[in-house]
C-alpha cells in the first residue's frame, strides 16, 4: 500500500506516492532523479547519502520517505548556488579533496553543516567531525585540508563583506 506525501525538495514542492519501505535516498534518486545523493552502505555507516532535512544533516538511506512528509529536504543539487557550498567545492578542487568522487556529495554536505556550526576547528577536530563520512581514496588528508582551506576562505569573505558594509 502506497502512502502520499508532500514535501519541499530543493525549494520546490514535491508530491509523491511511496511504499512505506522506500528510503528517502531511493525517492530522491529513483523518483526525483536527484542522483548527487549517493548510496554506499545503505545502513547509515558510510555517509555518502547525507542530505539536509529541515536544515539538519541526515542519512537519506535510513530516513523513510514517508517520514519526511511536510519536511524541507535539500540535496547537493539544491545548494548549487549557495555561497558556502561554492567555497567548499572550490577548496575540494584546489586541495585534492576527492579522487573518485563517490563520497564527495556526503562530504560536502557534512562539511557545509560543520562550517555553519563550527567555523573555527583544528585539523584534528575536523577529522572527528567528518568521521561519519567514509572515503576510500584520499586517506582524508586532502579532504581535511580542503575543509580547512574553505573555512579560511569563508572567514576572509565574511570579513570583506563586513568591511564593505
Amino acid at each position, binding site marked *: *500500500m502506497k*502512502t502520499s506525501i508532500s514535501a519541499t525538495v530543493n525549494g520546490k514542492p514535491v508530491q509523491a506516492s511511496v*511504499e*512505506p*519501505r*522506500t*528510503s528517502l535516498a*531511493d525517492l530522491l534518486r529513483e523518483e526525483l532523479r536527484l542522483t548527487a545523493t549517493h548510496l554506499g552502505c*545503505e*545502513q*547509515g*555507516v558510510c*555517509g555518502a547519502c*547525507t542530505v539536509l*532535512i529541515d536544515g*539538519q*544533516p*541526515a*542519512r537519506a*538511506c*535510513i*530516513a*523513510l520517505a*514517508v*517520514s519526511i*512528509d511536510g519536511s524541507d529536504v535539500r540535496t547537493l543539487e539544491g545548494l548549487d548556488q549557495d555561497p558556502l557550498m561554492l567555497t567548499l567545492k572550490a577548496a575540494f578542487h584546489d586541495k585534492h579533496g576527492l579522487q573518485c568522487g563517490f563520497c564527495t556529495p556526503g562530504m560536502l554536505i*557534512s562539511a557545509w*553543516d*560543520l562550517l555553519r556550526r563550527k567555523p573555527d576547528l583544528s585539523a584534528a577536530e575536523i*577529522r*572527528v*567531525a567528518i*568521521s*561519519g*563520512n567514509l572515503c576510500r581514496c584520499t586517506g582524508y588528508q586532502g579532504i581535511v585540508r580542503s575543509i580547512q582551506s574553505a573555512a579560511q576562505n569563508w572567514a576572509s569573505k565574511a570579513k570583506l563583506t563586513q568591511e564593505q558594509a
Partner: protein
Amino acid sequence: MKPAPFTYHRAASIDDAIAHLKATDAIVRPLAGGQSLVPMLNLRLAPADKLVDLSRINAMRQTEERPDCICYGALVTHAAFEDRLVPDASNGLMPFVGSQIAYRAVRTRGTIGGAVALADPAADWLTTIIALEAEVALVGQNGRRAIAGTDFALGPYMTAIGDAELIEAIVVPRRPATERWGHYKVARKTGEYAESMAIALIDKARGRARLVLGATDGAPLVLEKSAREIVAGNTGEGLAAVIRQELADSGRDFPPEKLLLHCTTAVRAVANSEKR
C-alpha cells in the same frame, strides 16, 4: 537494498500509538528516530509487519523542568543534548554524551527514548541514565508507570517495556553541583559502538560515588563495592584491584582480555572525574 514490505501508521497521539501497538499476530514496532531500527530493517535483521511512527507526537518532544529533576521527552534528539537546546542538570555529562554518539547526521534524528528502548548494551544513553539514577517513564494500555533505569535494563536488548507500552520520557534527577563526572569509552573508530565504556560520578563533598560499566555482554553493571572504596579514598592500583575483583565476581563470564579492558575503562573514568 530494501526492507521487506511493512505497513506504516503515523501516530497522532500517545493513545493512538498504543492502540496501534496492541498485541496482534503481526510484529508491530514503534519508530522513533529510526537510526537503529531502519538499518536493521534494511539489512532484514529486524522483522516488522508494521511500523508506528511516533515522530509527530509533540507531547513526546517536550522537556519539563521540575524542582528535583528534568523530564526529557523520549523524542529529544542526541543533537538537542549536544547543542544544549534542552536544560541540563548533570553538570554537563548529558551534553557530552550526546555529542559523541555516532555522527552528527545520526544525532540529528536519533532519540534518547529510542536508544534506551533498544537497550543495546554498547550504546551510550543506557549506561548514562543508569549512572545518573534516572527513571524511565512508561505509558501503556494500563496507564503510566515509572521504573528505575537499573531495573529497566534486563539484558542485551531486553527491557522491562511491556506489550504495547512506550517510553514517554526519561526523568533525570538534578545532580549536586559538587559532583564530578568522569567518562571513558573504548571504540575502534570515532562514533562506533563502544567496546567498553564507564561513567564515574564522584561527590567528595557529600561522600558519595557511583561507578557504572557499560558495553558488557548484558545490562550495565553498577559497581557498588568499588564506589564505596572510592568514597573511602582508595585510588591507583588498590582501586584497580577492587574493580577487577568486583567485575570477576559479577557473575558475568568475562574472558581475561575483556576483564582487563573493562577494568582499565572504569579506572580511567574515575581518573577523568578528577580532571573536572
